[in-house]
């Protein structure tokens, strides 16, 4: 791959993206438009995350890539190989050994540390999109902090169903100012966003937006005093490592309704099993 620059993107493009990232860090939760490039992988498969990773990765980084919490899902393998080929950096499956983690749909169970960067792949960055399809309108709503519709929606869910009907990509308020989509992570992972010591970067390639949660920033999942935010809970423990209080994958083991539950975070599970 000598015909391509380190990490595929040319240096000017990386600078443009890093400027967008700096702006995003300066205004936590604000969606910064950026000149998203056409990447050699499909839109919807992590083009935003890949561009963010490509612009911050250096030769000394150690990269971990996960999808659904696992290092060995096909798209995680594919993205990890892309960076192995274009940068030659070391890769790892260990959360605590990685300096840079690109993820789709999960935050690792192992607590993150200061100095680490997590890059989230974002399909739809706009938290108000299902309430207002127009970008011109939603940008105005953010600018004016006009978030009433979101609270009304949550309220209506509770009055109709007794619960907020959002299980993943649950909206959060960042630094007391911007409502943000945390990307389609399960709401189980939302509490990990709050005052996290790592730098959390979000890249949406097709929608051409970057946003960020800087280390130790307040991130509050939207709720009401009398209906506090709750996360998923399983009665079972992990069938492989025995962990409780982790996010579980439900595995269908036969055609008679048999189920088993295992950790979604494969690295966490393997290390508990002492491998």
């Amino acid at each position, binding site marked *: 791959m000598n015909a391509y620059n380190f990490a595929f993107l040319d240096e000017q493009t990386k600078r443009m993206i890093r400027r967008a990232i700096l702006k995003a860090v300066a205004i936590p939760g604000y969606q910064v438009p950026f000149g998203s490039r056409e990447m050699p992988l499909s839109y919807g*498969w992590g083009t935003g995350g890949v561009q963010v990773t490509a612009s911050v990765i250096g030769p000394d980084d150690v990269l971990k890539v996960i999808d659904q919490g696992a290092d060995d899902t096909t798209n995680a393998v594919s993205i990890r190989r892309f960076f192995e080929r274009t940068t030659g950096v070391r890769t790892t499956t260990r959360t605590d050994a990685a300096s840079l983690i690109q993820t*789709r749909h999960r935050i690792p169970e192992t607590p993150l540390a200061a100095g680490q960067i997590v890059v989230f792949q974002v399909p739809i960055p706009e938290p108000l999109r299902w309430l207002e399809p127009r970008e011109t309108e939603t940008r105005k709503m953010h600018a004016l902090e006009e978030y009433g519709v979101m609270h009304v929606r949550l309220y209506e869910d509770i009055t109709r169903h007794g619960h907020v009907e959002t299980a993943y990509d649950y909206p959060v308020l960042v630094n007391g100012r911007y409502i943000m989509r945390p990307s389609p992570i399960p*709401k189980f992972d939302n509490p990990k966003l709050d005052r996290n010591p790592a730098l959390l970067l979000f890249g949406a390639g097709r929608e051409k937006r970057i946003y960020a949660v800087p280390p130790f920033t307040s991130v509050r999942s939207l709720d009401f005093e009398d209906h506090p935010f709750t996360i998923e809970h399983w009665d079972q423990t992990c069938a492989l490592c025995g962990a409780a209080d982790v996010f579980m994958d439900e595995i269908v083991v036969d055609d008679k309704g048999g189920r088993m539950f295992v950790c979604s975070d494969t690295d966490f599970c393997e290390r508990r099993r002492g491998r």
Partner: protein
Amino acid sequence: MYVAVKGGERAIANAHRLLAEERRGDPSVPELSLTQIDQQLGLAVDRVMIEGSLYDRELAALAIKQARGDLIEAIFLARAYRTTLPRFGATQPIDTDGMAIRRRVSATFKDVPGGQILGATFDYTHRLLDFGLVDGHGATPPGEADSDAGHVAADLPALEGRMPRVIDILDRDGLIEPEEPDSDRRAVGDLTREPVDFPAGRDVRLQSLARADEGFVLALGYATQRGYGRNHPFAGEIRVGEVEVELVPEELGFPITIGEITVTECQMVNQFKGSATAPPQFTRGYGLVFGHAERKAMTMALVDRALRCRELGETPTSPAQDEEFVLYHGDNVEASGFVQHLKLPHHVDFQSELVLIRTLRAEAEARAR
């Protein structure tokens, strides 16, 4: 004992091998050459160049071959290659007045200065399968046309090597809205470098339409004809041919020709009833694409006109008049990627939904008891 599925890496490598095998097909059948694709599937090459925003017949042919004839996949390959190319500068606007015309028709006047030139077209062919082509001897042998190259009517007086646009005839009489060129200093928008901002300029809209999926633009343009944003179009002129591309190198300060490209241009003439400030006059819709692609250029012009509704004081009522709708959804590489990303695992989100729906059902059952 359950063991988590491993081996994504091996599965991917095997998938690539199988794909290569299917692409090649039966090895006893001779392999397609890029020249064959370029020469005999030229309109497919044109479409890949148009929607791939990359004028290079050989690369487009390669993309078609690699994509097994899936043109949207080929367009994606062309785009992903194009994105890494350095930008040396912007060319001068092309001058379609100076086009070496291959085909030129106007529906608004019976005859026009320079004449109507039918050229090579599917129009007026009877769509009967030509079984002669099975073994390479079609019903119509290829060959040069008569010396007047398909002119429908006799040439009007000499035009000094220029082929004026039909629409300029209306312009001279003030019957159509004037169109002033932008200042040379104004940078032309490029949505492949800067994210689209709304309201988008007409330059960005036209760029977006030129790159947009032909089927998407065709459906929108067609919808305007059926009343969803009707704008009463006439095909003022459609022309196909070669134009020179000029660049002003900074160190020279004057334009030099760097090559020649084939383009299809469509000027639509649309009715306009006038407003409080403007008298009734015709308005314009514009389409321009690489290669020979009349259907795309025409429908592009219809949608361009529809998207000008606000500027002309018309109330937008239909998708074709909705800038955000058209610009956000016309790109087939974006659309194809996002639709197909549903194939990626979503079992974490799905598990969250399962937990929620089980909770809601348990509560509903408890209430029922």
